[in-house]
């Protein structure tokens, strides 16, 4: 197991280097002189600008600049926004909010996704099964922000059941609808995945054995089928944590939540390259680490992976 974890961690290093290089390369490609942009319409003397260039290592070749950027990422120092706030401060205040939203979404994925997946998997081919399957496809086909608008319009504006926007109220009452909307596409995938896993396992030899020795249906489904079906589902949900942080860009913009996605959205509309790239980097790193943890969890749950070729 230790060997597997070691190999897996080592494999992550080139991916981290590659992704940060890719993202930083995109900033480097950005047109215009960042120092000139910083001073706006009244640029100071060339000498003064050169001092600033030296301060931000802009006079050095690309690869050196990348290494300074990497050092900044590792020491959690991303520079400043246009308003002079430290980007790391922005991240520190907004990330917990997005994390809450993402974890609430994961909760819904487990309760609704796995729950409906089990029911439809066991009772396949009935009206309920087909209705759920069709609904998941419809949800996948609608852009998340449209679903957000519609829910906002129906449940908040027309019916008044839940608040329309979140703003500064980070509590379960305000976060309920945004978390559900953020989770909607993932819930659909979890339902389909759980259902197909259960369907595959339903005819497995070990299930026949369990039934043959006289276990009742409930025990067979919950103790035998479910345990074997859930391994890929757990992997999917775990890996989705990073995806949800990315999807939060849209959800937070719709529901006005001051999370990291909202910072990213306003960074885009203000054209703040440094902020956007820093936030994307942080989100990508979270995504990579979440995937790493899930792979380790996977090996823990399924011995075949651990003792496989690796």
């Amino acid at each position, binding site marked *: 197991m230790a060997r597997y974890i070691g190999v897996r961690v080592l494999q992550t290093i*080139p*991916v981290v280097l*590659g*992704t940060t290089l*890719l*993202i930083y390369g*995109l900033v480097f*490609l*950005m*047109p215009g002189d960042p120092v000139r942009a910083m001073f706006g319409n009244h640029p100071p003397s060339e000498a003064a600008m050169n001092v600033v260039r030296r301060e931000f290592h802009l006079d050095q070749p690309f690869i050196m600049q990348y290494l300074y950027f990497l050092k900044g990422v590792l020491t959690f120092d991303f520079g400043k926004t246009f308003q002079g706030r430290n980007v790391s401060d922005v991240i520190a205040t907004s990330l917990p909010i997005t994390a809450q939203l993402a974890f609430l979404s994961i909760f819904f994925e487990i309760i609704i996704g796995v729950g409906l997946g089990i029911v439809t998997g066991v009772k396949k081919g009935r009206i309920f099964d087909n209705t759920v399957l069709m609904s998941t*496809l*419809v949800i*996948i*086909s*609608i*852009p*998340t*922000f*449209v679903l957000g*608008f*519609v829910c906002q*319009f129906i449940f908040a*504006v027309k019916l008044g059941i839940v608040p329309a926007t979140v703003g500064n109220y980070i509590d379960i009452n305000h976060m309920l609808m945004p978390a559900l909307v953020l989770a909607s596409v993932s819930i659909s995938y979890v339902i389909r995945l759980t259902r197909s896993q259960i369907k595959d396992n339903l005819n497995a030899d070990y299930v026949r054995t369990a039934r043959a020795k006289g276990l009742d249906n409930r025990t067979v489904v919950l103790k035998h089928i479910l345990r074997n079906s859930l391994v890929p589902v757990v992997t999917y949900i775990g890996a989705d944590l*990073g*995806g949800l*942080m*990315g*999807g939060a*860009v*849209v959800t937070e*913009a719709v529901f006005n939540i001051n999370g990291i996605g909202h910072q*990213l*959205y306003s960074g*885009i*509309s203000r*054209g703040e*390259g440094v902020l*956007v*790239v820093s936030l*994307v980097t942080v*989100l*990508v790193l979270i*995504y*990579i680490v979440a*995937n790493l943890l899930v792979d380790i969890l996977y090996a823990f749950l399924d011995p075949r992976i651990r003792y496989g070729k690796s």
Partner: protein
Amino acid sequence: MNSKIEHFVADYDTNLSAVDQFTSDKKVTGLIQEAWSIIIRNPLFWVSSVIVLILASMALFPGLWSQTDPLVCQISDSNLSGSAIHPMGTTLQGCDVFARVVYGARPSLAIGVMTTVIGTLIGVIIGTIAGFFGGILDSILSRVIDVFYAIPFILAAVAVLQLFQSSDSIWKVIFTLSLFAWTSPARLMRSAVLGVKQQEFITASVALGSSQFRNMFMHILPNSISPVIATATINIGGYIVAESTLSFLGLGLGSNSVSWGQDIANARDNLMTTPSMLLWPSLFLAVTTLSFIFLGDSIRDALDPKGRR
């Protein structure tokens, strides 16, 4: 089904080679013909194909469907509900919603189809090379795929489209989406090639003396491409949704262009007064995406030999 195998009882002086001969009126069919005979029996295939054809005709010849110019708007006609002249009503600016939906099909479909074509082509080439040659080349290509795969799609698109904020061209969206769309076909193709490479008919082909490239193009590629084709069809819908999301974030085609994504994004501010502005483009987008999912599903069912039975 109607195959008829006749067994001969040979005369004592018959040549040995004639003993095993039999006649059968079953036609020799290839994978494509067999898949076709399955797919034409699937009603979902017909429904989704008809919808896709209708949408394609809107994208190619929008004038057939609507004579109204989507960019000519009468402010005096602001916010009308459906009527004979404006079947789906008008927007706040007095533009005809039906005309905008019809003309919006072109950029949405172009982005979905072009991204899929470019991404799949690049992915198939890289995946085949990685899977076929293996070794160090495979390790390098696989790490490159990992890097591009590790960035969530929307975040990647946000980072790249930052570069083109001044442009309103449809190609900037296609380029950006393709830049990250090739990874999953590459992974699919690589694993499919690895599987096919080990099968007996490839060994037979090598034994018969066919060259490496003949092997790759004539035998391995056609036998491993079917999962990629099915997934690609499903993904067309996904890229259409992605375009609308980018438009919502202000990184799409720009507010002056006519596309479903842009119209949906614009509809947000007037949702209270003009819900039809949100309804129609969203409905068209969702139906299009669903049709591509069903089309891809029926192609997969037809091409997957394991699913037959």
